[in-house]
């Protein structure tokens, strides 16, 4: 259990001050001292590097706050129970995406710039190490914030893919309006069935639920007069068949979702690896160039030898 003796220390400082005054020892403390302190501070290199580093960090912080602020709206798109405030149009989302990307690019460029400049002026090994580490920290911070962004983007992309997929799920050229309406009715039941499924399922069903009320009324109005027993039976059979089809299609949808998420994850991993390799390839390139130079010089030296 650590004990804070800072107050004790300050008390010691006071004791020493009074003691020194009593002894008449000239000391840098007191009123003069503080002025000296001010003087001494300003010529001291305030660290151009660190102030710029802190600037970059505050930028990244702004990006993070921006993303977090709009995150809820960004993700929570399809809840039709939300008020107008909550809705975000796609264009707005695109705007956010674009802005975020530009921001991230500028930040990483700034970091790169800092990196090259940091090593130019200073000759001390320790300071170099320190600065490299600081820049690593900043880059890591940027990566973490970018992760926020890429997560929300992934969800959005997945949704778009699902939507496209679903729009292909409508039954084949069945011009009979009745059948199209019955298919909507049918689609409602499997959506009801799978309501307990995980949230990822909710969106396709909600889409259907959305479209359903619009067409359902239309269907109801038309079908009433003309349903004969045979047709009812036929419709029922077709219902059953369509239920089966829809179930299998929903399974496929689920699988596709899973796959897309995995693929995006894989892509992230691969991108990271490729970027890492880029750095290494650069250093290898440097080494090779250096080696070539050395060999050239070596050859020249060897050529000179017979002349001696």
């Amino acid at each position, binding site marked *: *259990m*650590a*004990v*804070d*003796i*800072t107050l*004790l*220390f*300050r008390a*010691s*400082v006071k*004791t*020493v*001050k009074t003691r*020194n005054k009593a002894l008449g020892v000239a*000391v*840098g*403390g007191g009123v003069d*001292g*503080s002025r*000296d*302190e001010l003087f*001494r501070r300003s010529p*001291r*290199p*305030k*660290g151009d*590097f*660190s*102030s710029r580093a802190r600037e970059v*960090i505050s930028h*990244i*912080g702004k990006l*993070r706050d921006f993303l*977090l602020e709009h995150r809820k709206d960004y993700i929570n798109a399809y809840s039709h129970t939300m008020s107008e405030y909550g809705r975000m149009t796609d264009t707005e989302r695109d705007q956010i995406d674009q802005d975020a990307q530009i921001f991230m690019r500028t930040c990483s460029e700034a970091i790169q710039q800092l990196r090259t400049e940091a090593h130019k002026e200073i000759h*001390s*090994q*320790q*300071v170099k*190490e*320190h600065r490299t*580490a*600081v820049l690593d*920290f*900043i880059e*890591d*911070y940027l990566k*973490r*914030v970018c992760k*926020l962004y890429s997560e929300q983007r992934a969800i959005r992309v997945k949704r778009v893919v699902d939507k496209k997929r679903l729009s292909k799920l409508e039954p084949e050229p069945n011009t009979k309006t009745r059948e199209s309406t019955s298919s909507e009715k049918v689609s409602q039941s499997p959506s009801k069935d799978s309501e307990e499924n995980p949230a990822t399922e909710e969106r396709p069903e909600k889409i259907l639920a959305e479209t359903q009320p619009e067409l359902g009324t239309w269907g109801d109005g038309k079908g009433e007069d003309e349903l004969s027993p045979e047709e009812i039976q036929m419709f029922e059979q077709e219902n059953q068949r369509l239920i089966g089809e829809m179930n299998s299609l929903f399974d496929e949808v689920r*699988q596709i979702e*899973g*796959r897309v998420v*995995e*693929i995006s*994850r*894989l892509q992230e*991993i691969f991108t990271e690896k490729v970027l890492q390799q880029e750095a290494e390839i650069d250093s290898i390139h440097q080494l090779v160039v250096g080696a070539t130079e050395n060999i050239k010089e070596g050859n020249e030296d060897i050529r000179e030898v017979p002349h001696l």
Partner: protein
Amino acid sequence: MAAAAAATAAAAASIRERQTVALKRMLNFNVPHIKNSTGEPVWKVLIYDRFGQDIISPLLSVKELRDMGITLHLLLHSDRDPIPDVPAVYFVMPTEENIDRMCQDLRNQLYESYYLNFISAISRSKLEDIANAALAASAVTQVAKVFDQYLNFITLEDDMFVLCNQNKELVSYRAINRPDITDTEMETVMDTIVDSLFCFFVTLGAVPIIRCSRGTAAEMVAVKLDKKLRENLRDARNSLFTGDTLGAGQFSFQRPLLVLVDRNIDLATPLHHTWTYQALVHDVLDFHLNRVNLEESSGVENSPAGARPKRKNKKSYDLTPVDKFWQKHKGSPFPEVAESVQQELESYRAQEDEVKRLKSIMGLEGEDEGAISMLSDNTAKLTSAVSSLPELLEKKRLIDLHTNVATAVLEHIKARKLDVYFEYEEKIMSKTTLDKSLLDIISDPDAGTPEDKMRLFLIYYISTQQAPSEADLEQYKKALTDAGCNLNPLQYIKQWKAFTKMASAPASYGSTTTKPMGLLSRVMNTGSQFVMEGVKNLVLKQQNLPVTRILDNLMEMKSNPETDDYRYFDPKMLRGNDSSVPRNKNPFQEAIVFVVGGGNYIEYQNLVDYIKGKQGKHILYGCSGLFNATQFIKQLSQLGQK
């Protein structure tokens, strides 16, 4: 009752965790550390002295330091350049030289702000020295915080700690037991030990009940420690043991027992040859602060004439808590370890093959529409394979590490026939009949180094009830000298035996048996690298070393002539004098065994094995310094020379 048990279990949450948490808090500018994934980076520089380095290195790896925001970690007494605009965290002992150097740093304005943390409490006068320097350098406002950390001990395992590594010599067995020690020197040594123990209990957050034997160095330590704890408890304002400094889930029902023993009660164990993995590594290889250094000989190769001879590679490995294999097997007998490494290797290879197979499947099925379901399945597999790759690589690294270490140990075992020594010593210590004569083993040129033989003989000498006759002794001495041993340790042991009234010599060691060859042949047949040909497959039977026995008596409140007259101290009691009658009649749930004069992994392992059988009981093992048999022999030798 269940809640109490859970509380004690949580509180016994290892000393390692407590010290790590304390260090992390210190590194976080003395504010409790919370992980925040989108937190802004803060950076700082860590300055430590050698003591601080020894404390930090078993607990935090360089990567963990980085995660806490430390860009550079430097020794106090090295050349350091000014780094502007960065806070510096100091973690040093409050010695004269350290204080001087810190004052110099302040004067040279090396860093932006200073967070001073002293490993053990700093005295008022030294604090004023720093204040003086800060004033002179106009740096008073830069000194942001000053803390006494009370962390003056090194934790090596969840339940094991040592006092120091740097100045081991100061508190070693030799230092305490040499005949020419002066009173002041003894006082210094005792003060060092007590200071560290005090820090230990502050970090643990408990006031123990102390028991110690009479007339030993351990008694001196106990008296001083009791006094120090008592003073601190009386001082209500500054007490370190008040309710809010203790963590939640404290030892609410029971206080721990501290058993202070002196090394002199058992000199045989430090010399003993051992058979468990961790103890073997410590005995045979260069192992301290959880790091083992190996020299790898780079095989027999023909180097062209005139070329420089190949250098041996030096490799060092850290054996850390995240190393699952180590945690599982550090107390296992060596043949078991060899087998387990083999098993791990096989399972790793199976997983590797699995990943390779995926590659070929992916290549084939890429085009086929009909196998879409298979493909999606493989996508999942591929994802899991990619994400499990780091895990696999880590596993491979650990397997390589342990293969190297175990191979090195095995080489020593084979070269020095350590299994023979182990078996023989066990027999001596348990007083079963010996099949081979001691003289034979000593005279055998193949078996072991001179040091091994010396160890064996010393154990024999210590363990026998009656000393061997003069003639026999001469014979042994001659054989030993022929084998190349130095006889100084024997001198000392003779004196020691004369001093201590070891009426009941280390008895009840139990017996060991040799298991039938089944296990061994299986290891050999699987084409294992660990060809233990000719190495006996010995199995340890549970036996209690003297230290364990003493602990058992005291913890379970058993009556035993050996421990009955141990002194009893309770710093929380108002009356200062001790009584021999313990007030508490219940068995203890929690105990700390501390050996003054040095300890070793054999005793540690023995205690761990002992407590494994008991539910809900917890033991911590500590010693003033860790040394293996080689170092101990050296100390005995120096003592014998005088």
